[in-house]
């Protein structure tokens, strides 16, 4: 199996006035294609920070992240946008859907950004079909015209996953996708992720719950800014 993403010597420090907070202290990690990895650790151990760095949503102070052997720190702004848009799909702990748009539009947004205004029209049909398929699979086919605030937490999280998958990224990064949900709803989300992984999707999931982590093939434990 090929390594899809690897991180070496990742450091991240936050400065809060006088004091500094070292969150990640030279962390190494490697994930193979097709794996379902769970990152666990106590609250505040830096799980989200790590995932953000992997998704190029934040910058590490030291160390590098390689996606398919290429250092993402060397990416130009344009390449970085392409990476965020097409190579990884990010699912946030707090969903982060756009309230102005309905469910379908939220899911379509990354695809619109990918193809641009002109390309969008020629691809519209196939992309819409894919979005509908994803929403159908997640049991949201009859909610496409709803606004995010009209949905439950679990439904919003599924919309967020559909949005993350619309451009068929090689890598899905999910930050506590079940964190705000009751165990039953959370279980539903996990099933979705397992299904996706079954279809060959690489998944990195963050959680602080060992039970949930046990659903992954590989569990990475984070403590004191390093993997233990």
């Amino acid at each position: 199996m090929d390594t899809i993403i690897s991180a070496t010597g990742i450091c991240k420090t936050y400065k809060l006035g006088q004091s500094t907070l070292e969150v990640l202290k030279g962390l190494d990690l490697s994930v193979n294609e097709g794996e379902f990895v769970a990152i666990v650790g106590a609250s505040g151990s830096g799980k989200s920070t790590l995932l953000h760095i992997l998704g190029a949503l934040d910058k590490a102070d030291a160390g590098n992240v390689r996606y398919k052997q290429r250092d993402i720190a060397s990416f130009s702004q344009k390449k970085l946008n392409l990476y965020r848009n097409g190579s990884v799909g990010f699912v946030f702990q707090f969903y982060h859907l756009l309230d102005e748009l309905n469910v379908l539009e939220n899911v379509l947004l990354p695809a619109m950004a990918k193809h641009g205004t002109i390309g969008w029209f020629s691809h519209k049909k196939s992309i819409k079909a894919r979005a509908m398929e994803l929403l159908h699979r997640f049991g949201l086919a009859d909610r496409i015209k709803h606004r995010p605030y009209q949905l439950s937490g679990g439904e919003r999280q599924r919309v967020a996953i559909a949005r993350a998958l619309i451009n068929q990224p090689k890598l899905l990064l999910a930050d506590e996708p079940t964190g705000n949900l009751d165990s039953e709803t959370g279980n539903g989300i996990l099933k979705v992720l397992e299904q996706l992984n079954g279809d060959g999707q690489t998944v990195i999931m963050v959680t602080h719950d060992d039970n949930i982590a046990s659903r992954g093939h590989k569990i990475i434990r984070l403590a004191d800014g390093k993997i233990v």
Partner: protein
Amino acid sequence: MLKRRITILAIASIALCVFITLVVMTVHNGIVNEFKGKNHRFAGDCVVSTDSLVGFTYYEDFLAELRAKPFVFAAAPAIKSFGLLNQPGSDINIGIEITGIEPGEFSRATGFGKTLYYNRLQPQDAFAHNYDKNLPGCVVGIIMMQGGTDKSGKYHHSSFRSRYEFSISCFPLTAKGALAKMSTGLVNSKTFIYADDSHTQIPKVDSKMIYIPFHFAQKLCGMDGPDKRVNAIHIKFAENTSVSEGTEKVKALWQSFLQKNDDKKYANLLQNVTVQKWTDFRRSSIAPMEKEQTMLLMLFIMLGFITVFIIFVVFYMIISHKSKDIGILKSIGISAISIVNIFLAFAFLVGAIGSLVGAVCGWAFVSKANDIEAWLFEEYGWQLWDRSVYAIGAIPDQVQINVVTLIVISAVAASLLGALIPSIQAARKTPVEILQVNQL
């Protein structure tokens, strides 16, 4: 995003700012222009005059020279003096200003004819009347004649002109500046009959001025000797000659006229004569207005700044509100430039809609303001300003295209600027920096 209440509020606030600025600027511009127009009509384009009551000689030669020039449309001499007015049978004398004119020619050189009531259409007959044919007519300033207007700002005229007699006295001066009648009682008096009134809308003029026929004035003032004198020549230029251009030409003409006549007996009187544009001639009247105008201009600049600032703040707040969305858009790989563009397009739309709404409302309001005011007065007797106190006939309603354009462009520019700064700020951050702040 366009449907949101905050957007509607933004559009409304921009519309309001544009509306207020437009209305205030239009009204102010209108008042200034109206005021200048009155003074322009009163003086003509250019005035050749002397401050001395003695006047100047050889004016007929200069008039002939002027009238021969194609750039001169009309040139009219005038006698200007001060005198006392007395109604026969009363012992009250009031101080007045006398202007002696040939009404036809004077009306061609100035707007005098249009200030008349009965003879507006035939100003050459301004002094005609139906009473004693031996007595000349006079035109009396409307405020002097009627005291003032009623509350709606109107003067009233009956179709029938009653007989009013005015006895006008003044001190004639010799060409040397001495009182002419040292031995015989000093004053010249003459009785005139009311023929019409003159409404220049300049209160200082309308309350003091009496126009009388030229040769009677010349005689009253002792200026009719063998070397006849006048105090002023009013000139109107031909259509294609600008005021400054024409005035320069008249100045040159006057210089050569001075040289030609410098060996004549009363050449010294010509030395005191100045050639002025109407704006300079009416300087003392216009200057206070202009001072006020610079002050108002300051206020406008402040109003403009406030407007631009309000619009700026509106957008700043909308977009700051939207920074979470910016973080989301960035996290799915939309470029900073596209994000800024989205917000600029939004700002442009809101700014354009808002300022157009404001401009249209302002336009409609200004052009209907007089009707609205008239209606309020009729229905409720309520008046924005008392016409008998202020010398303003109507609320100005001429909206200037360039003013509108300037206001709309500034408003849209302010919208864009207000949107640009926060969206660039947000677009430069990493997605996490934006999102973390907003998830709390």
